[in-house]
């Protein structure tokens, strides 16, 4: 084995220029592909983050049929068995209650329909870092009787901090709900869509306002890792039978999910073409390598080397060229991507506007997940295996008398 490796290593450097050019094509393939994948994954995870942290969380638990109706009549008081189950499911880090409905908000002559979300201020802050986005006034205190308003909504209503807002809505089973709320703070989110959305009040205050004491419309679950979401969801479904509606972020926001899926498949095609080109580059080199060394290979088999060993050497040669390209690619992409993960590239101009319209911060995000790199190794390895068919067929089909004559 070591001898094979030595032979293969020396062989690839017989034509230094060609090996470097071939490895360079792998290098560029890996570089492009890791950057592309890293940027995709960075963007997706940012999209999911937006959805998750601002809005849905990874998983929500509702009264059955809440999602279809989304009215205050579908709220619930979590039973002990539910709380017990949440506590005993290992990957649930914490859970946050919310009480959500729709209200009319008015100030002076302005009236707007908007979402009203009752939150537990410290817990919600833990989940969505809501207090980070307070640009004027203060965040809510527990038991607060005031309201936080998204910045565009506040502008449209013409309110400022310390103004008082009139809220009108429908409470439990048609009870009327109306109250005055002083504006405690203005929220400016990085995502423009969020800035039109609505207001936040304290959970207890919301329960009183909607006449649903001790009830929630949803429990928002934080899961230790994004990749655990489906597992946790299934485990909850099993443990809670059908007593609650359990939804993951992708069900609550299928649009984001579909966008990600569509984008991924598009990218697969691009990367597929890229690697096909790289593959043909390697293949060309292998063909030349074998043509040049026909006689030498004939001699090796004539004096007693098994064809299997000869083809193994050729495999190692191909794999080595690929490996050099991959490692060189990683040497550049790994540090650069690692840097970009913490320093996203800000966008300007039209691109920035487009991002903001979709509710994104105008920056290019990167991800440095291990699979982005592992996949390159795997792809190059598979390419090498496919290309290996050629030396395999050639070495086993080689006619000695003819090879020796070459």
């Amino acid at each position, binding site marked *: 084995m070591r*001898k094979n490796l030595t*032979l293969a290593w*020396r*062989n690839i450097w*017989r034509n230094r220029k060609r090996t470097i050019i071939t490895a360079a094509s792998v290098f560029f393939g890996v570089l492009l592909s890791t950057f592309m994948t890293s940027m995709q994954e960075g963007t997706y995870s940012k999209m999911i983050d937006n959805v998750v942290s601002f809005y849905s969380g990874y998983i929500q638990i509702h009264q059955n049929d809440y999602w279809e109706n989304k009215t205050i009549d579908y709220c619930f008081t979590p039973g002990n068995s539910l709380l017990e189950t949440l506590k005993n499911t290992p990957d649930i880090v914490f859970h946050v209650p919310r009480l959500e409905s729709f209200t009319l908000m008015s100030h002076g002559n302005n009236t707007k329909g908007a979402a009203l979300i009752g939150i537990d201020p410290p817990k919600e802050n833990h989940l969505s870092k809501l207090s980070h986005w307070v640009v004027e006034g203060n965040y809510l205190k527990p038991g607060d009787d005031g309201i936080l308003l998204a910045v565009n909504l506040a502008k449209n209503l013409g309110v400022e901090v310390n103004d008082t807002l009139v809220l009108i809505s429908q409470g439990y089973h048609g009870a009327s709900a109306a109250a005055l709320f002083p504006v405690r703070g203005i929220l400016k989110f990085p995502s423009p869509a969020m800035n039109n959305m609505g207001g936040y009040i304290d959970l207890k205050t919301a329960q009183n306002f909607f006449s649903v004491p001790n009830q929630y419309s949803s429990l928002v679950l934080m899961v230790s890792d994004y990749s655990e979401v489906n597992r946790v969801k299934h485990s909850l479904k099993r443990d809670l039978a059908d007593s609650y509606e359990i939804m993951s972020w992708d069900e609550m926001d299928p649009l984001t999910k579909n966008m990600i899926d569509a984008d991924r498949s598009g990218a697969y095609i691009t990367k597929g073409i890229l690697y096909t080109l790289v593959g043909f580059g390697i293949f060309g080199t292998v063909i030349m390598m074998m043509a040049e060394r026909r*006689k*030498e290979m004939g*001699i*090796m*088999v*004539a*004096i*007693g*080397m*098994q*064809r*299997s060993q000869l083809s193994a050497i050729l495999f190692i040669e191909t794999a080595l060229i690929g490996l050099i390209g991959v490692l060189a690619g990683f040497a550049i992409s790994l540090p650069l991507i690692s840097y970009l993960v913490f320093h996203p590239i800000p966008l300007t101009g039209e691109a920035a506007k487009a991002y903001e319209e979709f509710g994104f911060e105008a920056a290019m995000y990167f991800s440095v997940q291990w699979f982005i790199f592992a996949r390159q190794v795997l792809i190059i390895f598979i390419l090498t295996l496919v290309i290996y068919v050629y030396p395999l067929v050639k070495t086993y089909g080689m006619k*000695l*008398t003819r090879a*020796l004559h070459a």
Partner: protein
Amino acid sequence: MNVIEVKQLKKIYNTTEVKVNALNGVDLTFEQGEFAAIVGPSGSGKTTLLNMLGGLDEPTEGEIRIGGTNILELSSSKLIDFRLRNIGFVFQAYNLIPVLTALENVEFIMQLQEVPKKERQQRAIALLEQVGLGDRTNSRPSKLSGGQQQRVAVARALASKPKFVLADEPTANLDSKSTANLLDIMEELNRKENITFVFSTHDQRVVNKARRVITLEDGQIISDLKKE
């Protein structure tokens, strides 16, 4: 005991438009310790015969026994292994693996035989000294002259301790001095260590050194002379 025994060997090439009877019923035996030349005009079948004796190609008809083994019955990988353990080869030119040094080239065949490293190195060095290349062990083939390369090839052929060495026109690409030198080395190995050499040539000086001369014409043996 016969090292090589060939009966009614025929080889017909069908690859070209006209059939070529390259060997036409050759009967031949070689004994241990022979130093034999196969001669004849170009196209008379020398290479074809040596290829058959070395198990590099299959005859159309006939029998080949080497040390008693019918090599035509061996599977292709068994045959490769048989060559490795029983036959030494020296080809016309460019015999060596270019990326290996002289020493590594000689060691290479012993590596295939799984000879332990230490023994292998000692033997390779001793053989290179025997062929007069004790000072060139670390040179790659491209740094050696044609004659030196052929001497390394002889050392390599002997490294595997074969029953006999086959050499197809080993001096064809050499000048007269290198030719004489290579032949002297082969002759000495034959005399001192009783190594069997069968080589083809059409160089008269080489023929003169042989103790047996087999002459081929149109794929048939027309004379088989033993000296002494």
